[in-house]
């Protein structure tokens, strides 16, 4: 059995890892220079409880199951995950029944632990939320994670279990004969396969069309964000949602896993071709601030360090499209709108089994190991362990990113594990992610990348082809 997974976002990465549990060959194709640079890079990073999704949807089913898997998954992959819990706030009388509806919906979906809390209780747990709050729906199972870290770790673990990874290699064609997938094509070559998994995020419609399929139909829905520095840590401790209205879960205020505070996202529908429209807009950013201020009136906006936008792959049926298509051997993991990050582990487990059971001789690999050890994060280690690391490799004592206390040792290790670009280092180590946003460390990381890769600085990019960091040299 030979399977090609298309797209190394969190969905494709976890599917590839699950496929590696079985005997067979797994190939993962990603057109970007690294893992997790699509939708996975820019979202809220919430592991949702599952109370926002209508009971009959595929979303609801996989969200609740995925949520339950996250703790174990993140332990195996050594990535951060925190069950912060979440509140949905009722700020007016009209919103009170909405909380009851959400609770009922959540309970039908099997979401554990939902409770409605009084004003006093909400304010005692979250003293900075709007004092006008009337009550709050508390969901203890909601958590936060670093989405790209999940994808990166899953791919690393899959590589250790036999995955063949093809980065910077775009699938440009799929040959189908007798309604059965035959091979996938890239500018680099042709790969005969027995099955294809379409996990191409915003581009899943293009990939499906290569196999002659008209599903999914996708359009991007933009979500803009403002990120506040760690100095704002503690502003809220759990994820704060407004009462739902219309098409999205609204503009939220939530903690990020490394102590920052995230505000957003907006929800703006864009034309189908605007798949790369990740620019922020004046209207969007002011909506974010307005919406966030409704939940937390005293926002320290002076602590903003970054704005960004992500695109949700939306479809008219508002639900995931999963499983084998009318073309035999062509499997979809598409239209992965929110809560796609949450659902991904459950989808991966289920879909890998679907793909592999199509083969009669389905066999689990005896050698599969689900454990991946992360890059040491010195700033989080007990002192004695850090000391020991420095003794073995003094580069673990040389701090390069001062904001997040990331050492040269960690950066070199990130490069050893596949980082080739500034963003590759950043997403693996958080270097350049802090208060100064790389003003201190960009030149240092650039120099380390050039040295470790044996390349000229001009050849080092921020995010792959077309994004060089420097444009020439000073005259000698």
């Amino acid at each position, binding site marked *: 059995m030979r399977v090609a997974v298309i797209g190394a976002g969190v969905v494709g990465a976890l599917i590839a890892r699950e496929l590696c549990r079985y005997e067979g060959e797994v190939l993962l194709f990603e057109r970007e220079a690294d893992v997790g640079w699509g939708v996975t890079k820019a979202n809220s990073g919430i592991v949702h409880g599952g109370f926002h999704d209508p009971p009959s949807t595929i979303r609801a089913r996989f969200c609740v199951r995925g949520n339950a898997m996250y703790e174990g998954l993140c332990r195996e992959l050594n990535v951060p995950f925190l069950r912060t819990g979440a509140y949905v706030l009722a700020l007016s009388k009209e919103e009170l029944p909405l909380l009851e509806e959400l609770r009922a919906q959540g309970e039908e979906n099997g979401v554990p632990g939902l409770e409605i809390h009084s004003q006093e209780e909400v304010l005692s747990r979250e003293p900075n939320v709007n004092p006008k709050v009337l009550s709050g729906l508390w969901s203890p199972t909601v958590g936060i994670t670093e989405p790209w870290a999940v994808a990166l770790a899953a791919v690393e673990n899959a590589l250790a279990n036999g995955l063949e990874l093809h980065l910077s290699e775009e699938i440009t064609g799929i040959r189908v004969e007798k309604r059965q997938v035959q091979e996938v094509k890239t500018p680099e070559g042709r790969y005969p396969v027995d099955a294809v998994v379409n996990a191409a995020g915003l581009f899943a419609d293009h990939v499906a069309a290569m196999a002659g399929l008209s599903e999914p139909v996708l359009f991007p829905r933009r979500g803009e964000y*403002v*990120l506040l520095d760690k*100095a704002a840590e503690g502003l809220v401790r759990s994820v704060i949602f407004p009462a739902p209205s219309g098409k999205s879960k609204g503009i939220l205020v939530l903690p990020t896993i490394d102590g920052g505070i995230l505000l957003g996202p907006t929800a703006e529908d864009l034309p189908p071709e605007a798949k*790369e429209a*990740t*620019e*922020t*807009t*004046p209207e*969007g*950013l002011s909506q974010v601030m307005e919406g966030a201020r409704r939940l937390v009136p005293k926002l320290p906006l*002076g602590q*903003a*360090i*970054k*704005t*960004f936008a992500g695109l949700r792959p939306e479809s008219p049926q508002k639900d995931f499209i999963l499983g084998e298509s009318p073309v035999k051997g062509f499997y979809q993991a598409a239209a992965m709108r929110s809560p796609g990050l949450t659902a991904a582990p459950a989808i991966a487990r289920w879909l890998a089994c679907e793909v592999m059971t199509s083969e009669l001789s389905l066999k689990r690999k005896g050698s599969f190991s689900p454990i991946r050890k992360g890059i040491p994060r*010195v700033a989080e280690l007990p*002192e004695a362990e*850090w*000391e020991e690391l*420095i*003794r073995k490799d*003094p*580069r673990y*004592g*040389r*701090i390069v990113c*001062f904001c997040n*206390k990331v*050492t040269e040792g960690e950066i070199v290790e990130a490069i050893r594990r596949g980082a080739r670009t*500034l963003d590759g280092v950043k997403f693996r180590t958080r270097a350049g992610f802090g*208060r*100064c*946003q*790389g*003003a*201190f460390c*960009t*030149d240092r990381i*650039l*120099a380390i990348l050039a040295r470790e890769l044996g390349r000229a*600085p*001009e050849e080092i*990019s*921020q*995010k*792959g*082809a*077309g*994004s*060089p*960091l*420097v*444009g*020439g*040299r*000073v*005259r000698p």
Partner: protein
Amino acid sequence: MRGVKVDVLVIGGGAAGMGAAAAAAREGAKTILIERNERLGGVLEQCIHPGFGLHRYREELTGPEFAARLRGELESSGAELLTEATLLDLDPAGPRVRAASPKGLLQIRPKAVVWACGARERPFGALRIPGTRPAGIYTAGLCQRLVNIHGLLPGKRAVILGSGDIGLIMARRLRLEGVEVAAVLELKPFPGGLLRNVVQCLEDFEIPLLLRHTVAEVHGKRRLSGVTVVEVDEGGKPLPRTDRFIPCDTLVLSVGLIPEVRALESFAPLDPVNRGPKVNAWLQTEVPWLFSAGNSVAVFDLVDTVAALGARAGVAAARYAQGELPPARAVPLVRGENVLHLVPSALVPGEEATVFLRVPRPFPRVKVSLGGLISRNHLGARPAEMIEVKVPPGASKELSRMPEVRVEVTPA
């Protein structure tokens, strides 16, 4: 190194920290300086232009030359110098300091600390400018290090946002290296940097300075392709139909430095305008064992001043460690009309001092007064240039009768 006891620990080895460590050691205090970079010098190392040291050495030096002189003075002082040693945390109980270096983790228990960590640059994200997030956007200091330390050019055609000194100096530097500088944009109706730099860095090279302009949007998916520029009104709001596109592959931001105070902000009171810790005339913060000087107190424009204040902080810290600095009965300086940055925040009766202040906008002629204590006229007050007012010991004696001193600038 575990639990090393010292009299004075200086954190940061720029001009302020070098000045402080040398002075403290010369006072006979056992002194350690920690600096995260491989070399001492701080921001001076990347300022290869001349314009340093006219006051201290009566010569025009480049930044690295100035740093080399200070290093020489420091090396003969007897202070212990630890480079590649980065502060991790400063625990006010003790005080106890942890630092990391390739040689291991350090734990130091000082009697007094001089905080001299300089300033950091405001990042692009803080401006909340809409648009894409491509490669090619640099803060001016980063751009300066790329060019002057690494010998690398950021791109081919640059726009500079903000007319602070580093931005102006980088405009000239890039131009001299063959990078086209399309424009320098400044939100305010007057330049942020020194007049000298506007003339020598822009006018002499015919680089346009667009006052009351800003970047409204950033374009380009992977690498910057251009910026939309707009004119703004007095309040900084974009004026309709003034937008135009300037193609460029590089955007350099010179939009302000902020004193680095991360390790202190939880326990040392800060001045809301300076954004560094409040210090008295001894450069002592409101936490008695903690002293601070240089750009970590407020952003200064002359390195000579920074080195001198560093030395003052070093002497005071050494005396404190040796039990010879009496508790200060400090008289607060309060901001009156037209005073932005103000250092120190308090005077000590009987001690001479120099008060440094900045005005919020240019004035042709002003009267600067310190309560009833001192008043003097000043020609050509500009936001970029700090005004200095000396308080001689005689005048300072009168302070003991005053509850506070109001600092005021009035147009004359």
